[in-house]
């Protein structure tokens, strides 16, 4: 059987759902929900990162965000695809979101990160569905509030609009990284369970959601099709909010997850990986 190594780049600001997704995919590979889904043909020699907070993930509990100093070796998953007979080693480096934020703030990146971009086989971009993509402007009625003596703080780039930060991080990759073109980019909108709540009026189609809620990112990706080929997914790797997970935790993690793409809903979180690997 063919057996290659595939390196994916995972991009997202802090708390965008990157780690939950990696944990969920790792568990799903052991119990593929469909015959099309990727399965596992074994365990990688070093699973220290994958096991670090797995107990909390499986119990539906909140876990700490990725610490940049504890990252170590990239999480490695051994996958096989029944349909094509392909097998491989998938490397999903869970880069701390603050690393990307630092690139935006400091306007520099490490040479090792830059060099790693030469070998990537796909990009997973994470955005959250339940946080605003832009800062709130003082407009309309908000301007008419009674004045007070409060003075504004000096510009804090860390608090700049998230979609602006993320677009600039992608621009760094596009302009300074020697990536293969066009590079496949799967956009994963995390916490998708919150979008599907009946009282939520946001678009239920992930592509329409991105266009409405993360417009700058959406425009940037669409208008740079020579550089990026994009697919958009809605993902719930945990299955619900912290409160909802108290009840949902009676189910095994692979039954709580959900992914939506073009109106198709399933539990196969490996769909974006299959697309990046050209297995669809």
């Amino acid at each position: 059987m063919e057996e290659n190594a595939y390196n994916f780049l995972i991009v997202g600001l802090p708390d965008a759902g990157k780690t939950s997704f990696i944990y969920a995919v790792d568990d799903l590979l052991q119990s593929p929900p469909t015959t099309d889904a990727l399965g596992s043909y074994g365990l990688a020699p070093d699973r220290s990162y994958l096991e670090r907070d797995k107990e909390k993930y499986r119990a539906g509990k909140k876990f700490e965000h990725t610490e940049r100093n504890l990252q170590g070796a990239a999480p490695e998953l051994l996958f096989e695809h029944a349909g094509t007979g392909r097998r491989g080693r998938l490397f999903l480096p869970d880069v701390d979101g603050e690393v990307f934020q630092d690139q935006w703030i400091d306007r520099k990146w490490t040479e090792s990160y830059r060099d790693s971009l030469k070998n990537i086989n796909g990009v997973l971009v994470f955005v959250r569905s339940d946080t605003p993509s832009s800062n709130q402007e003082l407009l309309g009625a908000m301007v008419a509030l009674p004045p007070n003596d409060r003075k504004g703080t000096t510009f804090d780039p860390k608090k700049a609009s998230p979609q602006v930060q993320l677009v600039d991080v992608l621009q760094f990759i596009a302009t300074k990284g020697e990536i293969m073109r066009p590079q496949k980019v799967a956009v994963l909108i995390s916490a998708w369970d919150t979008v599907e709540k009946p009282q939520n009026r946001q678009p239920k189609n992930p592509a329409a959601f991105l266009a409405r809620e993360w417009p700058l990112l959406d425009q940037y990706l669409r208008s740079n099709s020579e550089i990026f080929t994009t697919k958009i997914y809605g993902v719930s790797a945990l299955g619900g909010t912290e409160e909802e997970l108290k009840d949902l935790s009676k189910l095994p993690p692979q039954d709580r997850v959900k992914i939506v793409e073009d109106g198709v809903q399933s539990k196969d979180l490996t769909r974006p990986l299959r697309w990046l690997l050209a297995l669809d």
Partner: protein
Amino acid sequence: MVRCKLANCTFAKDGRCLEGRGNACPNLVADGAQSVHDISSSDALEVSASVATPYPPSESLYSGLPLEIAEAREFSGRSRAIVVALAGMKESGKTSLIARVHQQFQAGPVAGYDFAGSRTLWQFENLNWLATVESGVVSPTMERSSRQYDNSFLHFTVRQPVSRAEPIDLLVNDISGETFPEAITTESVCQQLLCLRRADHLALVVDGAAIADRSFRHDHCAKAKNFVQRVLQTGQIGKQTVLHLIISKLDELLKKEHASENDEAATRLESEFNSQFKNRVAKVYTWRLAARPLDGSMPTESTIAELFGVWVGSTLRYPGILRYDSASADCARDFCRFGV
């Protein structure tokens, strides 16, 4: 006492991190630890571990600040790039206008153009900061454009969402309000506005609030015309330039008190612009808009989008740009054609 180990950082004095990372900056050390420059001294081996830890080699990326002319050449050389010069008195609303375009792209396409990139996103966010809730202000304000950026550009790349549409780079030169009257007074100051010579569009922004105030009205209107007169005289603009008169702060202009008088004054200025300059430039456009109204109304986004569409969609420079005498053949579409 905490201080920064970078020699030129003033964190210890004023709490401002050179790298903008605040208290979380890894360069902060307890007082007594040596600075980066001290490491090369003879007792370097005794420097505390926190200072001696080497950082992984890194590479600088573009700054996000306005582009210098040399940096802008990357865009003017690669494709059709449109240059817009924004000029006007202090606080006339030039920066608010261009910052508004950035905000509009954050909500969706503008004038049928998709956002395709920008090298100056950091600066756009900086400009908008004091108009956001996150900054902590109650009333929005706008960072004033600095003289240091008189010959530099804010940048957008846009693209129409149709097949085979090419990306278009827009370079916006925001001339500071301090320089504006000096350029009228002194020809040599005006000639130092290098980007004007390359401008496809010159947008004169006249403060609507000033027009609404009899003490300022006549001076501001006269200065707007004088500036155009000056740059026509120096040859910095001409038949290849599209001229825009933009009356800003529409909310202030049309305040109930004296609304008709103010409207009349604005109309007169528009009419004078047309009659005085229409035969000396490619075309004259007049606009009235509010980029950041303070009366509780919303910005005139459709007018701003329309203006943006005219900027991006029209240029008299292509084809058939007049070449500057000293330009070499391989400088096609570059600033050096215009002696810049």
